[in-house]
């Protein structure tokens, strides 16, 4: 599971990545001398996605002995910049292109094609005895910014809200901050717990508690929802229907609001080699890897768009 990675394991992964990059560089040299035809696919970008795409690439290379893919992190912005400047073949990004970036790309004659390869989702949990069943995105944002302080305001019992969250450097923390808090500060009263499991443990004991955890952590080893917590349904706004992250179809199709597709972009129509890798990622086999790594697979709507962009 991506979110469980310890710092040590991350370092190891970073080391492995560097190792892979070095090996890849050697491979490139070798192939350059042996045959000028074989080309390394350079993938760069989002740190959230780097482990996932690395594993996808390894599986792909195991199947296609001729293929060579190097995956680097650096952040979504780094990947998108590299596509604009033509220094990589495929960019990973966990957010959409900004208007500024699109303008810059068009200026340089780059027409990006965007593919959604997986979906990342967060769930909002409360104590099972809380009467609140659903919240809007705006309400979740206000609660974690500390503007709504009592459950009464959102139709719950007259009780002070007790906030639980992740540590400031976790990806989950910044995902919620960007996506739901509109890039505003978290309340200073958020109790920062050491991982998803501790948040679940705390909320299951705290009648007034509310926390956020990756959807994969909601289930115990038997595949049932953990005891003592209630998973809230989320509405995009006051007038839209509420969806639960437990409704897999809603997450696949990005109808569940606190989710984001994870993207890859190419400059113009992808080359045959890159298109083949993307097809592998979107194949049932690739999507199974996506689910195994704790993300969600892509729903039909997004898949249809991907197909269009591949042609």
């Amino acid at each position, binding site marked *: 599971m991506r979110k469980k990675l310890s710092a040590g394991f991350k370092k190891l992964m970073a080391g492995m990545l560097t190792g892979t990059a070095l090996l890849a560089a050697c491979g490139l040299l070798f192939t350059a001398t042996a045959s000028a035809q074989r080309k390394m696919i350079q993938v760069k970008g989002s740190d959230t996605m780097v482990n996932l795409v690395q594993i996808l690439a390894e599986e792909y290379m195991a199947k296609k002995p001729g293929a060579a893919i190097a995956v680097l992190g650096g952040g979504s912005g780094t990947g998108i910049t590299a596509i604009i400047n033509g220094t990589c073949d495929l960019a990973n990004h966990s957010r959409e292109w900004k208007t500024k970036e699109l303008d810059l790309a068009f200026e340089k004659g780059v027409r990006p094609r965007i593919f959604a390869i997986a979906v990342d989702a967060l769930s909002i949990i409360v104590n099972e005895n809380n009467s609140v069943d659903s919240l809007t995105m705006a309400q979740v944002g206000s609660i974690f910014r500390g503007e709504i302080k009592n459950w009464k305001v959102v139709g719950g019992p007259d009780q002070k809200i007790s906030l639980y969250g992740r540590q400031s450097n976790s990806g989950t923390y910044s995902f919620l901050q960007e996506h739901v808090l509109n890039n505003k500060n978290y309340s200073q*009263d958020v*109790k920062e717990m050491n991982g998803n499991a501790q948040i679940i443990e705390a909320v299951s004991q705290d009648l*007034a508690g509310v926390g956020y955890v990756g959807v994969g952590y909601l289930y115990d080893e038997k595949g049932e929802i953990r005891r003592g917590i209630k998973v809230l349904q989320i509405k995009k706004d006051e007038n839209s229907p509420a969806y639960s992250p437990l409704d897999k179809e809603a997450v696949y199709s990005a109808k569940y609001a606190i989710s984001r597709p994870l993207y890859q972009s190419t400059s113009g129509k992808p080359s045959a080699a890159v298109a083949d890798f993307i097809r592998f990622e979107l194949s049932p086999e690739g999507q199974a890897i996506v689910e195994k790594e704790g993300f969600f697979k892509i729903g039909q709507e997004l898949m249809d768009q991907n197909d269009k962009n591949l042609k």
Partner: protein
Amino acid sequence: MISVKKKSILGDLKESLIQKAFQTSGLLAILVLLGIFALLLYTSVPAFKEISLKEFLTSTRWDPTSPERPEYGLLSMLASTIMVTVGALLIAFPLGVAVAAYLSDVASPKVREIVKPVVELLAAIPSVVVGFIGLTLVSPLLAKIFKLSHGLTALNGSLMLAIMALPTIISISEDSLNAVPVSYVEASLALGANRWQTLVRVKIPAAISGIIASLMLGMGRAIGETMTVLMATGNARAFPHGLLQSVRTLTANIAIELGEVPYFTTHYYALFGIGLVLFLMTFAINLTADLILEKQKRKLK
């Protein structure tokens, strides 16, 4: 004759070598200390290119990854550290000294032989286990007692730290009570004092330097402890207004943020700045303890 002389030259050489070796190891301890201080200073100074020292020490808001404006004030965490530590010592010190007095003066040798090793075993419990007990056992209990929605509070941290500081306080206090010469006790009893009077007016004042040392060592343990408070206190960044609130200590903050902070950024340097503050705090505590002990010793003489 010659052989004896040779031997004594060899002996001198051996002695001076041994002396040098001990001298070096003594110096090494000082060097390591200075090295750590220099490293902390060197790594934390770049932080103050962007943070004013005034903000660092007097602002109560700490939010280095804020998308609005990064803030680097450690006053809330400083207050939390002091609050949790003082709370722990308020619990552990009277209890610890009482247990030490019981063990040295009241308990039968049989009881002492069982209780003392058990107390020392308490020190062997890993801090993460103590933290886990605080998280899963004590905090729900506190929530029930104080009618709170959750028990991840400064009080929970203080209780857990008290458990961890107890063995130090008990065993050092007991040792120093036992070290009081028997003649003192005999003289006191001979003058007609009962056992309570002897304990409170003769033994404890005579052993006070050791008892204070145990307090200081307990304080050092409490200030520096990380994992337990990280798990037990909830780690909210707000300024603490009471023992029944979630707090974040300086050590917990370093543990939380250093793992994934981008290296060589202001945030990274600021975390070392916190380390420097912690270092100076413990240094000051130890220095005060030494000065008190020194004064006490002179008084006894």
